[in-house]
Structure formats: structure tokens, C-alpha cells
């Protein structure tokens, strides 16, 4: 903890403030690598237990042993924010990382998507997630591992299914159809009102029950938690806990390129202007910076992926150069990755960076394809819609309680993986406690209905 970088934090913060960065206080902590791996796997420092995290954890451990990835820092937005720094970082790493964290903190404090999700939820997602975890531990004690695990199996398999345009604490749908608009008082109405009360029992006051759901509902976690016929209240709470965490994850996911680019831009810039850093540490930090924003792994000519740090960093450099820092700050506030790439990734920048679109064919062959800049942008963004998950909405609850889900195969371009879909339906059925059906299309684009029990194709 005392390898000297802490003394640089106030100086870096001063410098950042002079540049107009504006963030909520951040608590810095140095943590062991094992803890860093856990954060990477769970997405939050303390999160609910589930066996699927265990599988990912081992995978991550193997990766780390093979030297694939090294995490320098993870930062969680909030007031105060939390920044966890790997204790294996050297002084230079930590100076760089501190500057980087300030960039992130500025971003999450100002970007409207982040702001909205924090206003909806809270500025204390780290603490909330920890209290969800604690509650679930208590549930395990009360109801047993298997019962809780069944709920988590279902809730976490639907974790991408939230509706970010809705509020976090949603009300139930109105139970009845909205009343017909009240007739205005015209001459006829005035005379009609004079009639015998019995005659005038107006038909429009009879209430009609609204269908459930009134419109296709993408917020499956909320819908199930709210309308499942026989769910226990602790089970509903687990669904809502997972949903709240997904609300937190969404902006992180949907602004990754911008956010990492912004933080990289600022760590580079603050470092350049920080005259108080010892010369040796400065050189190390610059080297570390160039590793982070490196487009292609050392010794390679071509990469089949794009480093989001590099892409974001390049775009922000370009934007600040051409439009100035004030315009850049406005974009930082108002954009997400979709608008950011579509508005600012130009043909020229893409060519300069050497970005290309490729197609992987069935035989595994990878072929570079031509295309305009829009195609390239959409390719980059393809996995970002809806957390990269297929679009599925609840469309109907039948009289017998059967839940009907509808997959938007038109927008997604093809049907679902049938085996996995059935497995997920089996998870959901255990909490919905009534049949669950899913409409999608098969390999021949013919409509097909899956259920938890339908035989494997």
C-alpha cells in the first residue's frame, strides 16, 4: 500500500481538476491478484454465489497461469466510487492506473446513461450487491441450497433480459384497460344527463381487464418476479436483485469503447503533463500505456478482434484534435457506444487504423470482405445490443397460467439454439411453476414452439 503512489494521488487529482474532470470521490484500495480475478469473474467485488461463477473462475485462473491476461485495475462507479488496484502493480503502473481511474470516474459521473442507471438504482451498487449476496446466503440457510440454486439458475440465465428504458422500481401494469376518454360536455350530453339515472348507466364505465402483458415485455426478470403465479416472495427478491445488478452492468457494457477510450485518453494526457512523476516511473508508465492501447499483440501482423482501449483512445484523440475538449466532453455526456461509433468512426479513421470486416465461413476459413463504413460500424456494434443476447419478450399469459415467450427471429436473423433454449425454459418453468412456451424459428426458418419438455430435435 505504501509503494509511493498514494502520495501522487492528490497531485494527479489536482491536475485532473484543472482540466475540468468532475468526479465523485474515489476510494483506492490495493488488493491481491486472487481478489482481482474474482472481481473479473463476478463483475462486482461481492456478489451472489452461483456455481457458474465457479466454472468461470477456474477458467480465469487457468488463463492467468498461462499469462494471458493481467488486470491492473477495476473501478466501480458510485459516490464514493471504489477503485481496486492489483497489489502486484509497480509504482509506474499505479500512477498510470490512478490517472486512468480518474478518467473512468469522470465518465461515470457525467455520462447520461451511467447517471440514469445510478439515479434509478443507487450510487452504492457495490454495497447493494454485497447485501444481495448476504440475503441470498440467508435464503440458502432457510430454504436450502437446491431451492435457492434453482431460482438463481433461472434468474442468472435471464440476466440480460431487462428493459433499460423502464424505471428500476416498476409498478404493476394497470389492471384494467384505460377508461374511454370522458365525453365532453356538449348540448346533447347536458340533456342526456337529465334523464333517469338507470337509463344512463354508461357502458364505457364498465371496466375491461387488460391483457397480460398489455404489450410484448422485454423485461423478463421483472415480469416473472411480478406476475409468476406461485412464486415465493424470497424468490421474487432474488429475481429483482439480479435485475438491479443488470441495471448496473448495462451502461458498463454499452459504453465500453467510449469509457475505456476516455480513461485512456486522460491517463495519457495527465501523465504527459504531470511533471512531478520521477523520470524512471514516467518511462515505465508510458510503456505500460502503449501496451494497454496496443492494437495488435506483439509479434502479430493482424488481429481478428479490435482492442476497445485502442479504438476508443484513437477516436477521442481525433475528436479532441478536431473539435476541442468542450465538444468532446459533451459527446462524453450524451453518447453511448452506438451513437459514438456511428457518429465518429469515419472512413478515414478506420482506414488509418487498418480496420477491416471479415467473415468466418463454415469451413473455418476467414475472409476479409469489402464494405462501407456503416457495415463496419454495425459489425463492431453487433454484439452490443441487449447485452449481445437474442431478443425475447413475454407476449402472453394464458388462462391456465402458461407463459408464452416470443423470439424476434426477424431482427436477430435466425432462430435459437434449440437445446439451450429448452434448458433455459426448464430453469424458468421451475420458478414460473406453469408451462412455459417459446416461439422461434427452426433451421429452415419455419415457426417452431419450444417448451421445457419438448423432445430434442
Amino acid at each position: 500500500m505504501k509503494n509511493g503512489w498514494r502520495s501522487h494521488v492528490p497531485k494527479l487529482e489536482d491536475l485532473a481538476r484543472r482540466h475540468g474532470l468532475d468526479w465523485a470521490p474515489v476510494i483506492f484500495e490495493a488488493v491481491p491478484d486472487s481478489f482481482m480475478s474474482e472481481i473479473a469473474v463476478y463483475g462486482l467485488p461481492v456478489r451472489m454465489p452461483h456455481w457458474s461463477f465457479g466454472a468461470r473462475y477456474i477458467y480465469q485462473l487457468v488463463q492467468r497461469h498461462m499469462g494471458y491476461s493481467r488486470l491492473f485495475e477495476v473501478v466501480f462507479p458510485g459516490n464514493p466510487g471504489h477503485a481496486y488496484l492489483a497489489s502486484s502493480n509497480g509504482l509506474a503502473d499505479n500512477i498510470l492506473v490512478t490517472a486512468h481511474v480518474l478518467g473512468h470516474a469522470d465518465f461515470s459521473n457525467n455520462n447520461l446513461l451511467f447517471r440514469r442507471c445510478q439515479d434509478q438504482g443507487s450510487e452504492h451498487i457495490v454495497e447493494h450487491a454485497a447485501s444481495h449476496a448476504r440475503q441470498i446466503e440467508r435464503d440458502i440457510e432457510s430454504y436450502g441450497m437446491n431451492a435457492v440454486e434453482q431460482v438463481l439458475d433461472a434468474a442468472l440465465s435471464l440476466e440480460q433480459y431487462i428493459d433499460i428504458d423502464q424505471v428500476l422500481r416498476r409498478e404493476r401494469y394497470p389492471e384494467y384497460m384505460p377508461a374511454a376518454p370522458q365525453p365532453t360536455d356538449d348540448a346533447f350530453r347536458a340533456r342526456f344527463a337529465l334523464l333517469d339515472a338507470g337509463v344512463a348507466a354508461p357502458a364505457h364505465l364498465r371496466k375491461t381487464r387488460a391483457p397480460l402483458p398489455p404489450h410484448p415485455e422485454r423485461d423478463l426478470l421483472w415480469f416473472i418476479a411480478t406476475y409468476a403465479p406461485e412464486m415465493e416472495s424470497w424468490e421474487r427478491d432474488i429475481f429483482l436483485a439480479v435485475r438491479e445488478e443488470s441495471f448496473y452492468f448495462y451502461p458498463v457494457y454499452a459504453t465500453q469503447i467510449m469509457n475505456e477510450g476516455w480513461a485512456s485518453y486522460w491517463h495519457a494526457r495527465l501523465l504527459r503533463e504531470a511533471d512531478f512523476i520521477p523520470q524512471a516511473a514516467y518511462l515505465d508508465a508510458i510503456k505500460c500505456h502503449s501496451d494497454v492501447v496496443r492494437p495488435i499483440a506483439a509479434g502479430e501482423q493482424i488481429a481478428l478482434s479490435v482492442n476497445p482501449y485502442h479504438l476508443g483512445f484513437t477516436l477521442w484523440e481525433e475528436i479532441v484534435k478536431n473539435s476541442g475538449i468542450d465538444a468532446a466532453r459533451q459527446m462524453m455526456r450524451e453518447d453511448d457506444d452506438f451513437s459514438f461509433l456511428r457518429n465518429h468512426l469515419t472512413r478515414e479513421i478506420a482506414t488509418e487504423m487498418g480496420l477491416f470486416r471479415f467473415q468466418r465461413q463454415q469451413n473455418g476459413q476467414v475472409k476479409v470482405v469489402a464494405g462501407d463504413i456503416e457495415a463496419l460500424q454495425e459489425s463492431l456494434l453487433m454484439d452490443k445490443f441487449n447485452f449481445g443476447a437474442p431478443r425475447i419478450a413475454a407476449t402472453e399469459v394464458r388462462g391456465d397460467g402458461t407463459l408464452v415467450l416470443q423470439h424476434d427471429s426477424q431482427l436477430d436473423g435466425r432462430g435459437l439454439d434449440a437445446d439451450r433454449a429448452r434448458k433455459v425454459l426448464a430453469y424458468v418453468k421451475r420458478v414460473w411453476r406453469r408451462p412455459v412456451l417459446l416461439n422461434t424459428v427452426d433451421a429452415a426458418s419455419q415457426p417452431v414452439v419450444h417448451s421445457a419438455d419438448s423432445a430434442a430435435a
Partner: protein
Amino acid sequence: MSKDSETEPSPVNGWYELFSRGSRDWLRHSEKIREAVREHLPQIVAGSDIINHGARTVRVPVRMLEHYRFRLRDSGESEGVGQGKAKPGDVLGQGNPQSGPGQKGAGGKEGGGTELLLEFKVDEIIDWLWEDLKLPNLQPRAGPSEDSDWQREGWDRRGARSRLDRRRSFKESVKRRAKDASSPAFTDEDLRFRQLKRRRQPAMRAAVFFLLDVSGSMTERDRQVSKTFFFWVAAGLRRQYRSLDIVFVAHTTDAWEFNEEDFFKVTGSGGTVASTGFAKVREIMQSRFNPANCNVYLFYASDGDNAADDRIPARSELEAIAKVARYAGYIEISAAATRGSQSETFRLFQEIAATGLPSGQFSVAGADDVSAAVRHFFAAESQAGAQGAAPAGAPGVSP
């Protein structure tokens, strides 16, 4: 990364070292895998190649569990964006078709497809079999002879360190300090050691005869199935008997005793005369095992083609064995299951069972049926055993 000279060796708040959620969830994952494997007992039992010679464990390759999500059907094609010196039309080598779409989604970090090799204790699998099949425990037949054995009995102030009873010693200490609070926490006077004593108890010995037909008609595959079957029978009997003698006998038109190693390598040729095998078993039984105080089992594996003129001798020999043995079982290995019940040997065992002697027969087509066979025999045996020491009165076991 180069470390700065200011770096101290242990800059970390030790509190974070206490987190082990990843390992905890990994343990849960392993537990679930074991449960999943347990649901596939018949396949494990059938996989005869997993049985290491003499080993008490079997190894089963399993896949990491996948937490399922909705995913688009893998169309085999995908697109993406890369970076580097490439122009439209370039072919960038052969990618791995498996690492296609879906891997990049939010939850795409699952180590799907990673294989683990899990080791299971044979005893554990036998326990599962017993639980799954809801088999009652075997009722050993106690002979008139007695064994002596060490049993735990009483406590003493002196004894071997390994038999120190901590709980009892601590109680003594509490008692003493209740009288005199100022005395030391522990003294030698407090220590209590568990004592052992020799006790005589009824002998529960068991012997199992594995009789294998190695005539020309028994293929390599048939022998594999027999081996698997014998392995699980022996494991099942060991569950009940502390000392189990296993005798391996092979026969064609003549019969020989083998040691385990050679037994499964024996290949014979020529015809099948089952009575020679039974006679050999009876001979060994009479010379080495007294059926009066030993639980004798016979399991016979064959393809059922016994010589027609052997029917009478085979029957009398088998009857003689079945009268004194705990159980005589026959497993018929026939590729064509339809043929099963008509075979010479199958009919022989049916007749013996019909007379009320503790015997049974079961026909298997391949290794997949072995667990069903094990189940059949042990269920039948415990039914027969429940009748106590009067096997002649036990109802016959029908196939």
C-alpha cells in the same frame, strides 16, 4: 512490470486474502458434476476400460457444466472486425470453426467444452448403485465358527497417543477445574485413551466363484462384458464381507482354475461342457471352503451354447452347488437378445430356480446392460438371503 524501490514486500491488507468465493463456487460446481455423473451410473459401470487393474478408483471424463442461456443457432458463419494489414478478398488462414459466434456475448466466458478427469472411488459408485437400486444390504450367513477381532472398549489413563480421546480428556479437565479453578488447564491426569479388546464374533467369510466359458464361441467382446460384470459383482460383495475370496475358473470341455491376471486373457477353443466347470467349482469348494460356515457365491458367464448331451450332468452338478451355496447366478451374453431364453444353459438355470434353489439367470446384450444384471442378481440374492439359513424354502427367482 518493473517494481519501484519504494515497493514494500507485503503492501496488502490481509483481509482480502480471506475471500474465496471463486473457490467456493467452484466446489459447488464440482459437486454438481458428481451429481450429474451419478445419473449416468449404467454408462460408468459399462465402461469396462475405465477399470484399472487392481485400482480402487475409476476415472470418468466429464465436461464442465454449462449454465444455459438463450443463444442464436450457430449458423457456422460469423462476421467480425479485425485490425491490421489486410485488404478485401484476403484469406486469413484457417480459423477454428468452433470458436465462432456466441463466445463473445456477455456471459461468454464459460469454459464450455473443457474436459475434466474426475476420479471416483469404486466403493462410492457401489454405494450409489445400492442407493439408486434401493437394494437391501446382504444378510450374511454366520457360520458356527468364530473369528476374533479387536473392538473398542472403555477408556484408560494410559495408551497410545493416536487413541487419545480429546473430548473425554477435556471433560475431565473441566471437572477438575470446577473443583479448583486455580489449577492448570491440562494435566496428564486428565488424559483418557480409548482401549481395544479382542472380541470373538461369528465368522462372516465369503467366497465367490467366477466361472467363465472360454470356448471358441465366446468373443473378445463377450469376455469384456463378463469381466465388467465380475468386477462389479466382486465390488458389491466386498461391500458386505470383510474377507472375500475370489476364485477364477474357466472352462471349455475341461476346466481349470486361474489367477486373476491370466483369467481374463485365457482363450480356449472347441466346445462347451458346462458340467466340467461346475464340477471344478464344487471340487474347489469342498477342498477349501466349507459351505457350512462360508457364504459361497457362484457367478457363471457364458453365451449359453452348452453341449446337448451335457444336460443331465450339468444339471446334477449345478444342483449340488446350489444346494449349499448362498446364490448361483448365470449371466448370458448374447449379441442377439432374442435368442436368450432358449439357450441350453439359460433353461438349465431356469429349471434349477424353479425347484426353489437360490439361483437366477439374466441375459445381457452388451456392456450397457451390466448394471441391470448386477441389480437383478443382488435384488434376487437379498430376497433369497432374507429367508435366512433355509435357502431350500426360498421362492425361485424368475427372470
